[in-house]
């Protein structure tokens, strides 16, 4: 009989130790396996969170570790919540959030509805549509800066082709109010396939017999769409909206590479603003309060997201 490494290890274990292990309950063994994960979770996630909450009540600055740290109570929160600059970055984030969600839902749902039909090359087309989602946001940010270049970029030439506006007369990422739309276009290009996939899952979960029953009742295609398709895909669509909403609320990498928050503060999203406050201005206590405000908002949205997810699971 051949011996496996486990058999050899079992034989090599001293009898006193093996007796101890054999005496452990299932619950204890489960804890032994789970303990490293719980320890890492506490060390990497929970402890920094608690520490950030603590820092948000102080005037601590990370670049002055030896300076006296004073307890300032709720003053950091008061300052963040009355700061018009941060309010402006919140509205910039809202513009980004609303328009990306709008375009992604409209285009994503339309694509899913079209792809859901049976035709030749369906699988290949789905794979091609999904490709942008597979790319790294850093890569996407970098190559769209080239596409948006006024002199060599493809985007300006396409605009010139359709509108007649000279390619070098405007810059998508420069001053002129186009930059907030430039980041909306890139995010929509990248993440519409995700919304499409979720909508497709929703459309494919609708049983055919419901449509057959509607056909027997002589319901028109338009009525079938509004009374069967839309209500049954809605929970999935809501899930996609919440997920993309949370992700875009935290958006950093792609926009940081595309515009860095500029020109001026035109594309200064909250995450980029927070990074400036924390690691450029070194206002650690203040930026901790800022981070906690964003965290509570994302946590609240995530709670709704989990609730929506459970509703979809129940179907």
């Amino acid at each position, binding site marked *: 009989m051949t011996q496996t490494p486990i058999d050899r290890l079992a034989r090599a274990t001293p009898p006193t130790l093996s007796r101890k292990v054999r005496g452990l309950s299932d619950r204890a063994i489960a804890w032994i396996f789970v303990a490293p994960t719980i320890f890492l979770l506490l060390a990497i996630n929970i402890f920094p969170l608690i520490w950030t909450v603590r820092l948000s009540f102080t005037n601590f600055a990370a670049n002055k570790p030896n300076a006296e740290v004073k307890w300032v109570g709720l003053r950091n929160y008061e300052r963040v919540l*009355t700061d018009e600059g941060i309010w402006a970055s919140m509205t910039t984030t809202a513009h980004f959030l609303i328009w990306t969600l709008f375009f992604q839902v409209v285009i994503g749902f339309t694509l899913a509805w079209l792809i859901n039909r049976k035709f030749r090359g369906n699988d290949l087309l789905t794979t091609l549509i999904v490709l942008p989602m597979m790319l790294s946001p850093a890569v996407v940010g970098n190559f769209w800066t080239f596409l948006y270049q006024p002199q060599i970029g493809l985007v300006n030439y396409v605009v010139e082709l359709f509108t007649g506006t000279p390619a070098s007369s405007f810059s998508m990422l420069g001053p002129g109010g186009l930059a907030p739309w430039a980041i909306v276009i890139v995010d929509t290009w990248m993440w519409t396939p995700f919304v499409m996939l979720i909508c497709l899952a929703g459309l494919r979960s609708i049983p055919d017999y419901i449509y057959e029953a509607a056909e027997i009742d002589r319901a028109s295609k338009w009525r079938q769409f509004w009374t069967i398709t839309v209500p049954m895909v809605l929970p999935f669509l809501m899930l996609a909206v919440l997920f993309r909403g949370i992700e875009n609320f935290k958006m950093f990498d792609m926009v940081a590479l595309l515009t860095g928050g500029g020109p001026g503060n035109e594309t200064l999203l909250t995450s980029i603003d927070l990074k400036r406050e924390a690691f450029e201005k070194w206002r650690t206590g203040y930026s901790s309060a800022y981070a906690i405000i964003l965290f509570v908002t994302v946590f*609240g*949205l995530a709670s709704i997201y989990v609730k929506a997810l459970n509703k979809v699971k129940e179907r």
Partner: protein
Amino acid sequence: MTGFLTGLLRLRRGPWEMLATILIALGVVMLMQPFFLWAYTWSFLVTLVGTVMFIVVSHFPE
């Protein structure tokens, strides 16, 4: 509406979760709207109350 209010009085999960969800959504809207600074100032409190309420009421019976 009556069912919703009865559910609230009987501490049922559904209506309380709905109320917490409305508070969170209201807080997010207040945080990101560009019209009133006072709404932005109070948004965090509304979101925090909604979020804490959501955590508490998710332990209520169905």
